[in-house]
C-alpha cells in the first residue's frame, strides 16, 4: 500500500495495463514525449515506444474515431481528450458510432475502448477548460460512464475500463489530480464498473455525489458531524452509467432524506435522474423533499475568481445543504 495522488494512480493503471496486454495503446494530443497536458502519460512513451503511445494531431473527433476503428478491429485503445470541454467535436462519433456499434451490428462486433477526459472547474480555467460534460453521455445506452473520486478507485476502475468489452467514458476530476491523495494497493487489482461505494456511513441524510463532489461531500459530512452531530451517509456513485439503483435506494431507505450534489449545471443534470429514481421507487421512504445542489444554470464556468466561486459547489455549501435538510 502506497499513498499516491489521483493522477499517479491513473498513470500506474495505464502502465500496468500496457504491460499486461499488447493490444492496449494510448493516443491523444501530446500523450507521447510530453506525457500529456496533465502528465498522466508521463514516462510511458519511454517505456512503450511511439507505436503504443501515439501522439495525435489536434483533432478530437479523430482521436475518438480512430479509437473506435481500432477497437472494432481488435485493439484496446485508451483515447485521451485533453479537457472534457474539447470532447464535443467527437460527440457524433461517441453518440452515433461508439454507443451504437454493438447494437447496430446485432452483436457482430463491439467497441472495447476507453475515452479519458479531465473535467470540472475551480481551476480558473474559464469557460472552455472547466466544464462537466457527463450528463451528455449518461443519456446513451451502450456507453458506460465512470467518474472516480479516490486514487484507489481511479486505478481499479481504469483497469476495469480497459478490460471492459464496451466503450467506457472515464472522466477524471482534474482539480483533484494532485489534491486528492490516498492509499493504493501495489500491483494488479480492479474495482468493478457498476457498484456505487458508501464513502461514509450515516443515518440522517444521504448525500449522492461523484468525482470531485464526492470528495467534497465526504469533507462536508465530517464538518456537520463535528459541528452539529449530523450523521450524513455519502454515496460515491463512481459509475454513472449503468446506474446503481440498488445502492441509491438502499441508502435512502435508511435516511429518507436525499441531497444530490453535482458540479454540472443544475437543470437536466445527472442529479435529475437520481431524483427521479428516488421519487419513483423510494417514495414510501421519503421524509423530506429531494434536494439538489449543483452548478447554476449559466452557460459556462466564468473565469474571474469570485464569479467562479459562485459557480462552484464546495464543502461549505454542501455542509449548509446537509444541515438544512437534516433540520427539515
Amino acid at each position: 500500500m502506497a499513498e499516491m495522488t489521483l493522477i499517479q494512480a491513473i498513470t500506474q493503471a495505464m502502465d500496468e495495463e500496457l504491460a499486461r496486454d499488447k493490444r492496449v495503446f494510448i493516443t491523444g494530443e501530446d500523450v507521447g514525449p510530453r506525457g500529456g497536458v496533465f502528465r498522466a502519460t508521463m514516462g510511458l512513451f519511454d517505456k512503450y515506444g511511439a507505436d503504443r503511445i501515439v501522439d495525435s494531431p489536434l483533432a478530437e473527433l479523430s482521436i475518438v474515431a480512430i479509437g473506435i476503428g481500432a477497437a472494432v478491429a481488435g485493439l484496446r485503445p485508451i483515447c485521451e481528450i485533453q479537457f472534457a470541454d474539447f470532447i464535443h467535436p467527437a460527440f457524433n462519433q461517441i453518440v452515433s458510432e461508439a454507443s451504437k456499434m454493438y447494437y447496430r451490428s446485432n452483436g457482430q462486433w463491439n467497441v472495447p475502448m476507453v475515452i479519458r477526459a479531465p473535467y470540472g472547474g475551480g481551476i480558473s480555467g474559464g469557460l472552455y477548460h472547466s466544464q462537466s460534460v457527463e450528463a451528455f453521455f449518461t443519456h446513451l445506452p451502450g456507453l458506460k460512464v465512470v467518474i472516480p473520486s479516490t486514487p484507489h478507485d481511479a486505478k481499479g476502475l481504469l483497469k476495469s475500463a480497459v478490460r471492459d468489452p464496451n466503450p467506457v467514458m472515464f472522466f477524471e476530476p482534474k482539480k483533484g489530480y494532485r489534491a486528492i491523495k490516498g492509499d493504493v494497493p501495489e500491483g494488479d487489482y480492479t474495482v468493478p464498473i457498476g457498484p456505487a461505494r458508501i464513502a461514509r456511513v450515516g443515518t440522517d441524510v444521504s448525500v449522492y455525489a461523484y468525482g470531485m463532489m464526492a470528495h467534497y461531500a465526504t469533507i462536508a459530512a465530517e464538518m456537520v458531524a463535528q459541528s452539529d452531530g449530523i450523521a450524513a451517509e455519502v454515496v460515491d456513485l463512481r459509475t454513472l452509467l449503468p446506474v446503481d439503483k440498488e445502492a441509491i435506494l438502499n441508502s435512502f431507505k435508511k435516511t429518507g432524506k436525499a441531497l444530490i450534489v453535482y458540479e454540472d449545471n443544475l437543470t437536466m443534470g445527472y442529479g435529475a435522474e437520481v431524483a427521479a429514481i428516488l421519487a419513483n421507487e423510494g417514495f414510501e421512504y421519503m421524509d423530506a423533499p429531494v434536494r439538489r445542489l449543483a452548478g447554476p444554470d449559466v452557460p459556462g464556468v466564468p473565469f474571474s475568481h469570485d464569479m467562479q466561486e459562485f459557480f462552484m459547489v464546495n464543502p461549505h455549501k454542501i455542509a449548509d445543504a446537509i444541515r438544512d435538510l437534516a433540520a427539515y
Partner: protein
Amino acid sequence: MATPNKETVLEWYRQMVLIREFEEACQQLYNEKRITGVYLHLYSGHEAIGVAAVACMEVGRDHIITAYRDHGLALAIGVDPNKVMAEMMGRRDGTSGGKGGSMHLASREHNFWGGYAIVGGHLPLATGIALAEQYNGTGGVVISMIGDGATNNGYFHEALNMSGVWDLPNIWIIENNGYGMGTAVERAAGNPILHQRALGYGIKDLERVDGQDVFAMYEAVQAAVEHARAGYGSVLIEAITYRYRGHGVSDKQYDSKLREELEKWKREKDPITILRNRLEKKYKDIAKTLDAIDAEQKAVVERSIAFAEASPLPNTYEELFAHVYVES
C-alpha cells in the same frame, strides 16, 4: 499487374448484374410498400466501382467500409442476398436482425464494416481500422467509399490527414456522382477536382477514373492496393459516376434537365452495357452466357425476396434489448 481472365471478368459481370437486379427490385418493392421506411439509397449506376474495389481485396484479410449507399458492396463482397433483402425488410434473418435496415448492412466475416448514415462519419473509423492493421503488421488494407458530398466536411479532412501522417494502408475512393444530395459538386466544393485534396494530406492520388468502366476502376484500385500494402501509405481515387435513382428513393427532384442528364448517362455510360459490349466484342457467342447470367441473377433476387418475406419480423422485448452491452 495481372490481366483478369475471362472467368474473373464474367464474375464481375455477374456481380454487377446482381446489384442492378437487386436494386431495381428494391425500388419496386418500395413502391409496393413491401420494403417500408423512407430511406433507400440505390447503387444503380455505380456498380463498376464497388465490384472493382472488391475485386482488388483479399476478402477476410482486407477491410471495406462505406456510407449509406451500401447494398452494392454487400452483394459484391459476397454477403448472402437473402440476408441483405431480409435486412431491407427489417426481418429477423437480416444482416443485423432488422435493427439496421437499408443503410446499416454489415458482415463481420467479410470485414465489411458496414454502411453509415452520418455523412463522412465512417471515414475516421477507417483510419482507425487501418491503424490496427499497421499496429498488428498484418499487411491488410482498408478500402473506404466516400460520397462526393462527404469530401466537404471535417471527417474527411481529419481522416485523410491522419492516414497521411501515419502512412496508413487506407484506400480512399470518392464515388463522385455529381451531387451531394441535391447540390451539384461545383456548388459545394471550392475545388471540384476532388482527388487534388490528396496534396494537402501528403498522400498519393491518381487522375480521375471513369467509374463506369470496371477495367479502369480495377486498374486504379489495384495500383492503390499495391501501394498501400507495400507500406507506402494511403491513396485517394476519384471515380466519376452517376446515380440512376436520385439521392434516395424519396428523391422526387427530377426536372426535365436532370432527366435528360440521367438518360444520357444510361444511354452512353451504363457500366453493365459497357462491360457487356466489351465482352461480346472480345468473345464470339458469349451473348448466351451473359443472358444466362442475367436470368440467374434475376432468380437469385426473386429467391431473396421470397426468403425475406418468409422471415419473421423481430417482435420481442428480448430482441429490442439484445446487444446493448457486451456482458463480460
